[in-house]
Structures are given as C-alpha cells and as structure tokens.
C-alpha cells in the first residue's frame, strides 16, 4: 500500500512528500517482524544470479500478505526495480518514487528497509531512471513472478484482477492451486469472479484421477458455457481416441454435449460482437466523413484536402498531449484530461486552417468545381509536406488516457472503452450538426445557399460569410475526427490519405448534400464490412464492399437519399 500511495504522488511538493514520508515511517513501525523477513527474501531473490534459486524464493512469497511484496514484484516484472551498487557493499534493490523534481530526478526507496537511499551525509540520493541499471529478469523468471502475483492477486481488491488471475491459474491445470481457488470461492461475491474461479476449478479437475470428479468438471464447464474450457475439452476428446479405456460413455457424452453448448454460445457472442464492431467501424467512418458531408455534400466543393484537416486535428491532439505531459507528467490524473482539451483545440485549429483555405483559394473557385478538386489536392500535398517538415516523416505517438484504455467484458463479448467512446461521440456530433443545420438561422442560410445560391443572395443572405462559416465548421469537424482517430490508429503526415477515399465513399453513397444519407451510408458500409470480414478476410471483404457500392451506384447514381442541390447540378 505504501508504494501504491507513493505511485500516486504528483511531482513532489514539499508538503506531499513530507506527508508520504511520515505515512511511510508509521507504516514501517506497524509491520510485524515476519514481514521484514519476507522483504529480506525479496531482496535476496532480486540480487541472486541463479534463476532456479530466484524462482524458489519468489514462489515462497506467494502467501505473504505484505502489500509491498506485490508492488515490488510487479515493478520488477516491468523492469522498474533498480539496483544501487555502493562500493564494497551488497547491491541494494530499490524503486523510484513516482514524481520527479525540477531536474527530472527522484529519490529511491530501498526495498529492504522501505526508506529512501541516503548518502554518507544522510541526504537522500537522487536518481534519473534513464541512467539506472534495472534488476534483471528473464521471461522464465517473469512467469514465475506472474504466478506468484496471480496467487496474490486472487485476493486483490479489484474484482477484474481477481478474475484474470483465476483464469490464468486455471489454465495451468495445477492441482496445487485448488485449495487457493476453493478458499477464494467461499468468500467471493462478484459473479464474474465466481465464474472464473468455478471455471478454473473445473479445468484443473479435468485431469483428476477419479472418473466422477472429471464428469462433474465437464458438466460444470458445460453449465458455465466456458470458452476457455473448449480447448481443454477438445484435448480430452482427442485423448479419448488414443486411450478409450479411461473414458466412460457418460463422460464422452458429457464432453460432446458440453462442446456443442459452448460452441453455440461462441456463435451467439460472435454475433453480438460483429454487430458492435460494425457500429464502431460505422462510427469511425461517420466521424471522418461528417466534415466532408458539409464541405462536399452541402457546399459542393470537391475537397481533396479534407483528409489533411483530419491530420491537422490529429497533430493538434498530439500537441495538446505534449503540453499536458509537460504540465502534469505522463500517466497522472491531470494528463488523463488532455483528450477533453484536445477535442475543442483540434476543432479550432482545423477550423482556422479551413477559414484560411476558403478565403485564400476556394472562394475563387465556387463556380469551377473541377478546378477546386485540383487546387485542394495541391493544398493537401502542401499541408502534408509542412507537417513532415515540422514533425518529421515518422509517425508520432499519442498515448490514450487511462479512461479510454481497457474494456468491459459482458457474456464473453469485449466492449473496448475507446470504441464505446467513438460510438457515443459519433452520435453526439451528428445530433449537434443536425441541430445546427435545422434549428439555427445559420443552418437555414446554409440550406438556402445549398438550394440556390443566387436566390439566397438576392434575399439578403451574406453568402460570403455563410460560405466561410460553413467551410470552417466542416473543417473543424474533420479536425475533431482527427483527435478521435488518434485514439485508434496512427498519426503521421499521410494520415489523411488513408481516410479520404472512405470519406468520399460514405458521402457519395449516402447521397450528396444530405446528412441522413451520410449516417445511413456509414452504418451500411461499416456493418457490411464487419459481417463479411470473418468469412472473407479483411482483403476480400473490403473488395466486396467496394464492388457492392459500385453496383449500387449504377442502380442509384445519386446515392441512397438523393437531394437536389448545387452539388448535383449540371
């Protein structure tokens, strides 16, 4: 717990570190002597060179309730336990406190004593992570650590951690773990963890010597509709072919039944999953294409620079992230909010570039759509090269805030947070755009312009200003799309290129000049793509979707919802 507390420390202000130190000292005095012994074991495990000895030492820590052991083992596995090597003295393994001072250094916490490492004068030593030697681990050792951590994790406070630990340990089919599972199951309240524990027990018991225990285990897996169990049941069935004498008819029947039930469950969960993936891909397409639905759909500009507006939005998100890292440090709570700031910032930057583009070039080309195609394509090349010059040709890294990483697992269907967010965001911006176009006077003017520019101008609509505002809004939407896409894929100078075709596809299929068409087209393409993908593979799936769109447009050249507007006039 100490270390967890320390990990949460923000860059140390004097008062928080003092508080932590006081807390730390209180804690050290409160722990019983045996815990201190375990720490000595831990230190020995880290500093020994023999992997077999290390593994034994680590195993012996599996039943120790001291939370510092768990923290230290986790850190060791991730390579953030460091070694302090004073001259002529044994190595001291230590952790770094979470925050850094102004020079980027932080103090080290000695794992043996739980205190800061001090120099001869009694002053805490300062370290920078980059200059330190991390304590060695190999993948074998890490697995041993993981097993120990998993056993410790069975009594973790977080139910997700307990669940993962149970399923991981169950896969090892090690009968030694059974008492651990049963003990935990007796006290467990969360249904998901109970399921994982029952599953782990059943999978382990599949190898039991007694036939009735095995039968019970198979039935338990059947009842749980256990997907992890499927592999083990299949293995059992192959085994039955080689030595049939060990399998009763009852057992074979039960295995067969269980497999049928579980496979049925898998296909239901696949179905829900495909639907979800379809919606989430649709949402991505929709977010990316919505800006184009405005600039191309409503205004009739064949805007080849739309992709680059997305890219500008994505780079804006990258800049916001860097600013927040500078202000709060990475992985802190403050950092987590960067994305909320990135969305409006991306909107503004891309919108601003949109205004410049409209004022500088596009307004001269309203009557010459084909020339606007060439001009915007040129602009897109210029923008790409500009980004390459500023940020380099390589992609830049954007880290997701913690609330956008991870997933909810319901009925064996994984709902990733970033995907859920993208869906919610798509709905929000569609509603917002729809309200803007139908309920505001700007929206009314935009629609008037779209239907007949001269007439609208005659009626007193300031076409110049409305054009500029609409184009800026469309570009801004593209910018936000970029920020959103940064949570899913790459950010590089050619980001826009990979989206522009999809965007045009959505807008053209939906019917130029119409929002509900764009929404339906995005849904149609997204869901079809995901339904086809598991059967045809990604490559053939994509080709099929493209071919279907071409055929559809032969049948209805104006798209799903045809409207008359400038975009379609001769």
């Amino acid at each position, binding site marked *: 717990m100490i270390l967890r507390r320390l990990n949460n420390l923000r860059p140390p202000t004097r008062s928080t570190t003092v508080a932590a130190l006081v807390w730390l000292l209180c804690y050290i005095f409160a722990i019983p002597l045996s815990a201190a012994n375990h720490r000595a074991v831990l230190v020995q495990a880290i500093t020994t060179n023999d992997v077999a000895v290390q593994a034994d030492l680590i195993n012996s820590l599996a039943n120790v309730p001291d939370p510092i052991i768990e923290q230290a083992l986790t850190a060791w596995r*991730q*390579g953030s336990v460091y070694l302090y090597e004073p001259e002529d003295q044994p190595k001291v393994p230590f952790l770094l406190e979470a925050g850094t001072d102004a020079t980027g250094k932080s103090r080290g916490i000695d794992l043996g004593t739980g205190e800061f490492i001090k120099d001869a004068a009694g002053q805490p030593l300062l370290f920078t992570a980059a200059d330190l030697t991390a304590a060695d681990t*190999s*993948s074998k050792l*890490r*697995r041993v650590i*993981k097993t120990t951590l998993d056993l410790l994790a069975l009594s973790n406070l977080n139910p997700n951690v307990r669940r*993962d630990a149970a399923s*991981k340990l169950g*896969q*090892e089919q090690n009968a030694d773990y059974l008492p651990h599972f049963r003990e935990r199951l007796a006290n467990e309240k969360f249904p998901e963890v109970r399921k994982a524990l029952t599953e782990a027990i059943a999978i382990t018991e599949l190898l039991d010597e007694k036939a009735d225990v095995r039968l019970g285990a198979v039935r338990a897996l059947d009842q749980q509709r256990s*997907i*992890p*169990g*499927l*592999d*083990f049941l299949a293995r059992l069935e192959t085994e039955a072919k080689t030595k049939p004498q060990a399998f009763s008819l009852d057992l074979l029947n039960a295995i067969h039944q269980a497999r049928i039930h579980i496979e049925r469950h*898998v296909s239901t969960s*696949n179905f829900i*999953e*495909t639907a979800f*993936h379809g919606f*989430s*891909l649709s949402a*991505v397409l929709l977010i990316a294409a919505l800006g184009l639905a405005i600039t191309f759909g409503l205004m009739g500009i064949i805007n080849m620079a739309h992709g680059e507006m997305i890219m500008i939005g994505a780079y804006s998100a990258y800049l916001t992230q860097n600013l927040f890292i500078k202000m709060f440090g990475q992985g802190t709570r403050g950092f987590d909010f960067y994305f909320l700031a990135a969305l409006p910032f991306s909107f503004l930057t891309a919108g601003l570039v949109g205004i410049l583009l409209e004022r500088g070039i596009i307004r001269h080309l309203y009557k010459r759509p084909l020339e606007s195609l060439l001009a915007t394509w040129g602009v897109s090349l210029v923008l790409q090269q500009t980004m390459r010059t500023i940020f*380099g*040709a*390589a*992609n*830049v*890294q*954007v*880290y*997701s805030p913690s609330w956008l*990483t*991870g*997933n909810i*697992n319901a009925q*064996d269907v*994984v709902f*990733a*947070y*970033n*995907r859920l967010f993208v869906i919610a965001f798509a709905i929000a911006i569609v509603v917002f755009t729809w309200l803007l176009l139908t309920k505001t006077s700007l929206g009314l003017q935009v629609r008037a312009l779209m239907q007949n520019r001269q007439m609208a101008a005659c009626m007193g609509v300031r076409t110049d200003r409305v054009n500029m505002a609409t184009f800026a809004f469309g570009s801004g939407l593209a910018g936000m799309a970029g920020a959103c896409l940064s*949570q*899913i*894929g*790459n950010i*590089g100078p*050619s980001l826009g290129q*990979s989206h522009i075709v999809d965007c045009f596809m959505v807008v053209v299929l939906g019917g130029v000049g119409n929002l509900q068409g764009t929404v339906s087209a995005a849904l149609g393409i997204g869901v079809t*793509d*995901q339904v086809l*993908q*598991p059967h045809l*593979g*990604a*490559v053939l799936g*994509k080709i099929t979707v493209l071919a279907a769109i071409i055929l559809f447009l032969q049948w209805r050249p104006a798209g799903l919802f045809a409207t008359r507007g400038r975009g379609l006039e001769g």
Partner: protein
Amino acid sequence: MKKLLPKILSGAAALALALTASAQDTVKVGILHSLSGTMAISETSLKDVLLFTFDEINAKGGVLGKKIEPVIVDPASNWPLFAEKAEGLLVKDKVAVVFGCWTSVSRKSVLPVFEKYNGLLFYPVQYEGEELSKNIFYTAEAVNQQAVPAVDYMLADGKKKFYLVGSDYVYPRTTNKILKKYLKSKGIADADIIEIYTPFGHTDYQTIVAEIKKFSAGGKACVISTLNGDTNVPFFKEFANAGLTSENCPVVSFSLSEDEFRSLPTKDLVGHLGCWTYFMSLTTPENKKFVADFKKWLKTAPAGVDRNNRVTCSPMNLSRTGVYLWKQAVEKAGSFDVDKVREALPGQTFKAPEGKVTMQENHHLINPVFIGETMANGQFKIIKSLGPVAGEPFSDKFLK
C-alpha cells in the same frame, strides 16, 4: 546570350575534366533506397548508415586505395522505378556495386536488370527466400534465421496454437506458407493454426483481435505477425484494449525493429518478441563502437539526415556488413570487376557487431540469431542467443 554560351561550354569542359580526374581515385557505388513515398520511413535509415560506412572506410584510405563515391538515386517506393533506376546506375553511372532495396517486390523488380548487365547487389532486409541470383548477395536474414528460430522458441515455451497475421504481399504469404509446413512437421494440428492477411495501411483490427481473444482463451497460444509498418499501431492498440498481454498471448513480429519503434506506441508493445541477427542492445565492444561512431557521425552528417532520436537496427547493421564484405572481397580479388569480386566473396568473414559473420557459397550469411523482448524505451532486451545459423534460402532444404 551569345557571349554567355562559350563561357558555359568552357565551364562544362573544366567540370568534366575535374570529374575524370577525380574518377581515377574514387570508385562509384550505388545506393538504391526509396527516399520518398511509403517506404521512405524505413529505407532512409539505410541510406544514412551506408553513407556513414563509406565515410568510415574512406577515413581509413578507402577500397584498393580509392575513395568510395556514393551515387544516390531515389526510386520513390515505386517498384517499376526501382528497375529503371538500377539500370541507370549500372549503365550510365557504371557503379562497381549497388546497396539497396527493402521490400521483396522491389528486389524482384531489379533482379532481371542486375542479371542482364551483370551488376552486383547487396540486399540487407529479412526476406522470404526461395530465390538465388548470381548477381545478388543476401546479407539479410533468411526464413531459417528469423521465422523458424522464433517459432522454435515459442514451441519450446509450450505454445500449441499459432495465429499467423500478416500484410497481404509476397513476404508474409511465403513466410507463413513455410511456417505452416514447419509447424505441421512439429505436430501442430491444422485447427490450431490460423492464417490471416490484411491490406497495407489497414486500420480496423477489431474482428481479428476479437478472434485472437477467443483463440487464446484456453491459453498456450501466440501470434506470429508479419504486419508491416503503420498497421502495427492500430493492431497493438486494439490488442491491448481487448485485455490481451504478452503474458496471455505473446506476439512475435518479424518486421518490427528498433528503427520502427521510433514511431510506435512502445508502451502497448512491452513484452512482445522480436527475432533478429542484431539488436542495438548487444553489448559486444564492436557494437558499442558501431553505435557510438554512428551517433558521432550524425552530428556532422550531411544535410537531410535526421539527427534526432536515431537508433541502429538489424537491416542497418546488415547494410554496413555488406559494404565491408564487398570491400574485403575487392581487396582479395585486387579488382572491382564484378565476376572477380563475386568469386572472392564466399568465405569472407567479418567481425560484425553481433559476432563473426561468414559469406557462404549460397550468397547468404552465417550469422548469430537472437530473440529479444520489447522494452518500454523502444529497445530489445535479449532473452536468448541462438548462436550462428547458416542462412538457407530454399525451404525444402531445412524442412523435412
């Protein structure tokens, strides 16, 4: 205008004279790497390391007393253009040797050109094999120096299920075809091998990752990835978000080296594996010197060379090794003549950063192989050294 013309002519003549004069103590060497287009991101680093190596050699007196004069052309990630530029190098510039190509398709495109004009090409990037031209020397890892050892490592680790995912082109398809045969020979059932391809630049890995999640639910599963370039970002993001880690399902990537990690979110890649004949984290004195010298060279590097956050990686190292092997062969043959150099090359050894390498009769290297785990800082932690492996391009020779 009339007065200007004679001046230009005499200037040109003087220039031509200067050029022929300099041509006597230099030897022209071609660099055939894309400096623009999709592959530029990887290939530019190879051009940089080649220039560095030439400077290194020139500082010590060059080859046979002649300084290396690089002729850099840009085939712009355009496969037919590779053939055109190669022809230009061989016919117009009359280069003694060419270092170049990254993708297999670019190599296949220049191969007939090198055979027609009897040129010499050194190819430095891991590839699928099943090819042997008398005009090409492959310093690259063959399938039995990368894919097979990686799969062996997974098998030894107790993995029973293999999910092969790759970009849709010749290298992943051929490699996976060989791997499938190999896995079957090791007793892995058909149902436990899944093979899947995605287009270049694919961004939606939801379905594939969901499938991997179910595939690996029972444990003992791993992913063998030949995904190329950008697509790795959405793949690994999706992978991490689905709750998959290197512990419950490790990914071995054949196309990701330190140079690619510069633009990947390495946090999502921690613990996943790589298999190469070289890692920047090797601690041999030769490697320490190579890395330090390269970094020093970057400070004074010509304009256009990116100086920030530079790393070294296997294709870069193998590019450099190729230059040294060529130099030694030229010195042994006492001539730049392609036929004589080709005869002198087999048997050449070089103390490379990863250890001793030897050029074999089959134009491939004997080279030590390592398995490494990705760390958060974009470096590999070497977890296994497999010792020297003799490169063999033809899979029927190492598959029984």
